[in-house]
C-alpha cells in the first residue's frame, strides 16, 4: 500500500466517507421505513396509524414523523433481559452477526452512478468517483449471495440458543426456506448475467443504460422468479414463516428483547432494502431513465450525477412500497405450499427463462446483423411468450389458488392413540 497523500485519499478516506454515508443513510432509512410500513398498514386497513409523535416536549405533531426516534429510545431503554435458559455466547452473537452481514452486503451495491472528479482534493481530482464502497470486486453478485447465506446462521443459531421450542421451529423453518429459495434466486440472476456478460452490479446497470432496454422487458419470467424468491429470502409476509406471530409467537427472536431484538428487526428491514436494490439494479435499469440520466460513466456533470442518485432512490422506494403493499394483500403460505412453490414452480420457471435467454444470447449476434436495433423486439417478444406459456402450464399443473386442502391426503383416526401408533 502506497502511503502518499493521493492514494491515501483514494483508497482509505474516500471509502470511509462512503461507508459512513451509507450506514448513516441506511439506518435512518430503516427507521423511517418502519414508520412508512405502519402508515401503509393503517391505510390498507382503513385506520389512522401513528400520527401523534412530533417534536418532543411541544405540541407539534408533524404527522408522526418523530415516531422512529421514540421507537429507538424505547428499544434502547428497555430492559436487556436475558433468559436464564439460553446458551449465552451464541445468544449474544446471533443478532450481531445478522446485522453485520446485512450491512456488509452494501459494500458491493451501487447507490448511484459516479461523481465527477472533485478539483482541489488530491487523489480524487482525476477520475470519476464510483458511488460504490468496493468498486474493484468483480464477482459482486456472488458476494451478495455469500453474505445472504451467512445471514442464515444467526437465524438458526438464535433459534437454537434461545432454547425454546417456538424459536427453534422458527430457525429450522427459516433455514429450509432460505436454502430452497436461493436456487430460483440464482436462476433469476443467471439470466441477467448472460445478457450483460458480467456479474458486476455496476456493469449490469451500465449495460442496460447503454442499450436503453431494461432487463425486465426482455425476461419478464426471470423478473417474476427473482421477485418471488427475493420476497422469500427477505422473509417478507407471504413467506414470513420463520417468525409467524400467530403460530410461533415471534419465531427465532421470541426470546430477544431490547437492543438485541432491535438488531434483528433492523437486519430484516435491511434485507428488504437489499432485495429492492437488487430488483431495481438487475431488472429495472438501476439509475437509468430514458431522456433524463444519459448513459456515459466517463464524463458526467454534477446535475446528472445527483439526478442518477435520485432516480435510483425513487425506483428503490417504489419497489419497497410494493413490498409493503404485498404484505397486506396476501395471506401467509403453509409450509408445504412454500416448499412446493420453490421446487415445483419457481425452479422449472427459472430454468425455462434461462433456456430462452441462452438461446437468444447465442443467436443474438447473427440476429443483430440482420435486424439491427430490432433485435430487442425479438428478445422481448420471445421473453413474454415464454412468460405466458410457462404461466399457463403452471396454472394448469398446480392446483388453483383457492384450493387450500393439504397436498397429501389426510387420514382419519378415531382416537389420538391410533394416530401416534402410526409413527
Amino acid at each position: 500500500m502506497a502511503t502518499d497523500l493521493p492514494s491515501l485519499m483514494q483508497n482509505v478516506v474516500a471509502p470511509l466517507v462512503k461507508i459512513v454515508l451509507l450506514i448513516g443513510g441506511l439506518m435512518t432509512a430503516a427507521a423511517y421505513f418502519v414508520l412508512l410500513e405502519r402508515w401503509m398498514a393503517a391505510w390498507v386497513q382503513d385506520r389512522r396509524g401513528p400520527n401523534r409523535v412530533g417534536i418532543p416536549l411541544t405540541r407539534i405533531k408533524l404527522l408522526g414523523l418523530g415516531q422512529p426516534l421514540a421507537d429507538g429510545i424505547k428499544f434502547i431503554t428497555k430492559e436487556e433481559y436475558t433468559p436464564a435458559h439460553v446458551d449465552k455466547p451464541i445468544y449474544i452473537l446471533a443478532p450481531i452477526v445478522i446485522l453485520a452481514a446485512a450491512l456488509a452486503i452494501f459494500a458491493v451495491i451501487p447507490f448511484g452512478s459516479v461523481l465527477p472528479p472533485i478539483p482541489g482534493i488530491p487523489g480524487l481530482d482525476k477520475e470519476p468517483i464510483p458511488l460504490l464502497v468496493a468498486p474493484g470486486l468483480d464477482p459482486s453478485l456472488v458476494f451478495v449471495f455469500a453474505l445472504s447465506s451467512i445471514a442464515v446462521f444467526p437465524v438458526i443459531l438464535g433459534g437454537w440458543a434461545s432454547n425454546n421450542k417456538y424459536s427453534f421451529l422458527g430457525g429450522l423453518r427459516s433455514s429450509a426456506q432460505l436454502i430452497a429459495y436461493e436456487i430460483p434466486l440464482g436462476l433469476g440472476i443467471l439470466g441477467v448475467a448472460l445478457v450483460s456478460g458480467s456479474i458486476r452490479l455496476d456493469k449490469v446497470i451500465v449495460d442496460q443504460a447503454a442499450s436503453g432496454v431494461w432487463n425486465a422487458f426482455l425476461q419478464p419470467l426471470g423478473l417474476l422468479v427473482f421477485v418471488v424468491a427475493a420476497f422469500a429470502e427477505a422473509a417478507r409476509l407471504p413467506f414470513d414463516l420463520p417468525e409467524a406471530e400467530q403460530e410461533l409467537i415471534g419465531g427465532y427472536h421470541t426470546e430477544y428483547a431490547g437492543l438485541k431484538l432491535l438488531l434483528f428487526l433492523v437486519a430484516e428491514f435491511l434485507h428488504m432494502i437489499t432485495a429492492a436494490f437488487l430488483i431495481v439494479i438487475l431488472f429495472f435499469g438501476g439509475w437509468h431513465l430514458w431522456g433524463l440520466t444519459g448513459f456515459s460513466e466517463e464524463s458526467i456533470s454534477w446535475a446528472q450525477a445527483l439526478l442518477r442518485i435520485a432516480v435510483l432512490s425513487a425506483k428503490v422506494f417504489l419497489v419497497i412500497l410494493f413490498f409493503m403493499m404485498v404484505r397486506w394483500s396476501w395471506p401467509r403460505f403453509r409450509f408445504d405450499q412454500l416448499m412446493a412453490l420453490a421446487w415445483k414452480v419457481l425452479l422449472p420457471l427459472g430454468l425455462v427463462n434461462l433456456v430462452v435467454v441462452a438461446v437468444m444470447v447465442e443467436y443474438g449476434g447473427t440476429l443483430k446483423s440482420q435486424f439491427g436495433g430490432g433485435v430487442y423486439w425479438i428478445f422481448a417478444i420471445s421473453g413474454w411468450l415464454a412468460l405466458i406459456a410457462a404461466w399457463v402450464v403452471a396454472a394448469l399443473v398446480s392446483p388453483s389458488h383457492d384450493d387450500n386442502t393439504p397436498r397429501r391426503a389426510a387420514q382419519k383416526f378415531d382416537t389420538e392413540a391410533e394416530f401416534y401408533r402410526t409413527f
Partner: protein
Amino acid sequence: MTLDALVRNPLTWGTLLFAVGIWLLLPRGATRGWWLGLVITLVSLGLFASRMPALGDWASTGTFGFLAAVTVIAAVMTITLKNPVYCAIWFALSLLGTAGLFMLQGSQFLGVATIVVYAGAILVTFLFVLMLANPEGHASYDRLSWEAPLSAITGAFMVGVLTFALVGVFNPPDAFDTKFSTVEIDRTGEILAGEHMAHLGGQLFSRHLVAVELAGTLLLVAMVGCVAIVAEAKSRRGQPASRKRQRPKSASREPQRPELRAGEALR
C-alpha cells in the same frame, strides 16, 4: 537435506510440538493438560510463523497475519471443542478466514465461492442435522475424539510437509533467511485481470472443461442414487416415501379399519 539441518530447523520442532499440543487439546475424556496443550500449540504456531517470508509492507503482512491467525486458531477450536454446535461456528469462522486469504491473493471468486458453498450450504446442513439429530448434545461418543494420537500425528505431519514444501519453494535451501524471493509471474492478462469472472469462466470451460464435466457428472450420479434409494423405499412400502413408516400389518394388535384405507382423502 541432512539430519543435522533437519534438527536445526525450527519447522521440525514446530511440527513435533504441534502434534503434542493438538493431542493434549483434543477432547479425550479427561480435561487434564488443556492449558499445557494450548501453550504448546501456540509455541508451535510461533515456530511455524518464524519461517514466514516477509510480504512487503506492514499493511499486507498485518492483514495476512491476522487472517492466517483467525483461520488457524478457529480450525484448532473446531476440532478441540466438545459441543458440536460451537464446533460448527468455529468452522464457519475458519472458512471466513480462508475466504479472506483467497481475496488477499486476488482470487476473488474463489474467496466468495468458499463462503457460498461451504459456509452457506454445507455448514448450514451440518447445523440442521446436528440440531435435529441430538439437540441435547450429551452423547459421549459425539463429544470425544476418536483415535486422538493418530489424528494429531497425521494432521501435524501434513501441516509439516506442506510447510516444508512451501518454504523450500519460496526460499533456496541454503539461504533460509533471505527475503521472500520468487519468480515474478505476470498474471495480469490471465484470471487476475479486471474482468476476473469472465476470464475464470473462460478458463474453466475451455482448458478445464473435462474436469468441470466430470465433477458435474459425479454430482448427477449422487442425485440419481438419492432418487433410487427413495424410489426403492417407496416401492417397498407401496406408498409415498415422505410418509412416516406404517406399522407392519402382522404386528398390529388393533382391529383393522376396513372403511378407512390408508391414503383416502377427506375432502
